[in-house]
């Protein structure tokens, strides 16, 4: 009896250990093709990639190599044509659209090259938007949004509309919006692509500080090799395949 109990407990610890060591993202044999003008364009071909929680990765590659396509798959915005995809302990291939939406809402924050803020909402309401899809009351969502705006140093711009903000400020608002759901993963597609060098390094510092201080997993698509050096891993996309290097 006692022996059986011991074996049970051992198994439980083992299971827990496996759970703990499961990577945040795991791609196995992922392919993505596009049909265009009757031709099949294979963008990703048998891609395997593992990202652990708390890591920071840069995705590098030539233009048109499939970086954004890879990021969209990582962000559950696009379904691969084949392969296995696990994220946050869930099998993504079998999840329904609503489950994917919930996963995006709770675990992923997006930062885009062109900010993608809602032009009709104030900075505060832009930041609060993801929370309204969780059913958080407007006032509470605004309070929490304010905390994030303070964090990115834009407390005094809360009532501004995106059109009244500079490029760097817009990207800070977008980062605050990505942070508000306290995500495990931040995906950024050329977040500094539309910014001048000074502002760009400020934005990168902000993203890197989040990775350092809150252990938020960071995946950044970039063309800039100096930016990529600040991240722990570099993932090169080339000819439909990926290769990962450590810095």
């Amino acid at each position, binding site marked *: 009896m006692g022996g059986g109990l011991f074996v049970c407990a051992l198994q439980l610890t083992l299971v827990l250990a496996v759970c703990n060591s499961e990577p945040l993202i795991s791609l196995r044999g992922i392919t993505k093709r596009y049909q265009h003008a009757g031709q099949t364009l294979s963008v990703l071909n048998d891609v395997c990639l593992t990202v652990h929680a708390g890591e920071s990765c840069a995705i590098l590659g030539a233009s048109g190599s499939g970086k954004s396509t890879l990021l*969209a798959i990582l*962000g559950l*915005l*696009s379904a691969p044509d084949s392969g296995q995809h696990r994220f946050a302990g*869930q099998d993504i291939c079998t999840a329904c*659209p*609503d*489950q994917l*939406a*919930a*996963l*995006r*809402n*709770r675990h992923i924050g*997006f930062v*885009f090259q062109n900010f*993608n803020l*809602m032009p*009709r*909402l104030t900075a505060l309401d832009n930041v609060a*938007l*993801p929370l*309204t*899809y*969780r*059913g958080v*009351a*407007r006032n509470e969502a605004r309070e929490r949004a304010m905390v994030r705006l303070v964090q990115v140093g834009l407390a005094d711009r809360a009532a501004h509309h995106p059109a009244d903000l500079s490029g760097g400020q817009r990207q800070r608002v977008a980062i605050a*919006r990505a942070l508000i*759901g306290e995500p495990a993963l931040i995906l950024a597609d050329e977040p500094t692509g539309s910014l001048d060098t000074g502002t760009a390094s400020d934005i990168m510092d902000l993203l890197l500080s989040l990775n350092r201080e809150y252990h938020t997993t960071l995946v950044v698509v970039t063309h800039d090799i100096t930016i990529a050096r600040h991240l722990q891993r570099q993932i090169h996309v080339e000819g439909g395949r990926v290769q990962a290097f450590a810095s």
Partner: protein
Amino acid sequence: MSALQVQRPADLLCEALVGLRTLGKRSLLALLGIVMGSASVIALINIGNNAASEAEALFKGMGVDTLVLRFSEQPRALDTVRLHEMLPQLRSIAPIAQASVSLVFRGQAVHASLVGSHAALADAMRLTLREGRFFSDFDQLATFAVVGHQLAQELSAGGVPLQVGDQVRVNNYLYQVLGILQDQPDGLLMPIRASASLFVPLPGMARLDGRAGMGEVVMRAAADQDMPLLASAVRQAIAHLHGGQDVNILIAQQMIEGMTRQSRTFSYLLMALAGVSLVAGGVGVMNVMVMNIAQRKREIGVRMALGARRRDIRYLFLLEALALTAIGALLGAVLGGVFAWGYSLLSGWRFSFAVSSLVLGMGSTLLVGLFFGLYPAMAAARLQPVEALREE
């Protein structure tokens, strides 16, 4: 994962209204169709209702208990006593013979219609007298006459007013004026114009015009009779008395029913018209929403990336379509109400606003908005996030 995300309705509405504001002028144009549709439904229902109640009120005043029987071949005589015995539900029975004559009073010659009848006519036609009295059953053979209001005025045109007791020459006979009628409207069923007629006892008619036959019988039913039933009883009795004589019987109820049916048909027609403008407005709403969604694809993609589910996107655009329609419906309700009120004013009707028209008008407009907003909203919800995001 099991944690359900629920967007609060108030927030949804807020967002929909914010979205609407940016639609601007294009949405105003779409609104025009919706406003017209909603306004016409509400105006037409009200106008139809007011017209129907007005028509009914008109008829109600004319006595729903009257029957008018018209012979196809005029009989020499009608045994009213027998008829009364057979049909005690009849309160009064008055046969009528008509002729056209010229009257002379103090050298003044006037053309008039001569009506020969029984004493019962006064009750059957609800005639009231201004002066004197109507002739009675005992005056059957006397040369007594009762003068209609308008005819009395014409005869008084010479300067001397016609009075009870005066003598009026009809052809070669002198008739003594027994009474003068009050001015009152004729019922629509009535075969004669009381105001322009000279009433004399029926048996004396042959003296004045040998060819004048008994053309009609005016009857009035006792209280609380089923008029259609009574009409068929009268038809049977006449067939019995006059050997299969074919008669035509008019009752007010028939005409009221005919009139309401007609006004109902009219309002159906108007409703069809309203429906057409509503559908046109609905297509306008759909058009605006399709363009709106095409322009905001990127926004839809971003919302999906932030965690909006398909139904969140669907509700967002459905609500925008509904809010757009609701504004139009409200404007239309005001416009339609004002229009119906103006129409009643011009027609001299009493205006009453039917609450049902508001429910029906706004309700049908909102349904139209919902129906035509559904397709664009579902199309928006079915967009693939990455494709929507790629849109410029």
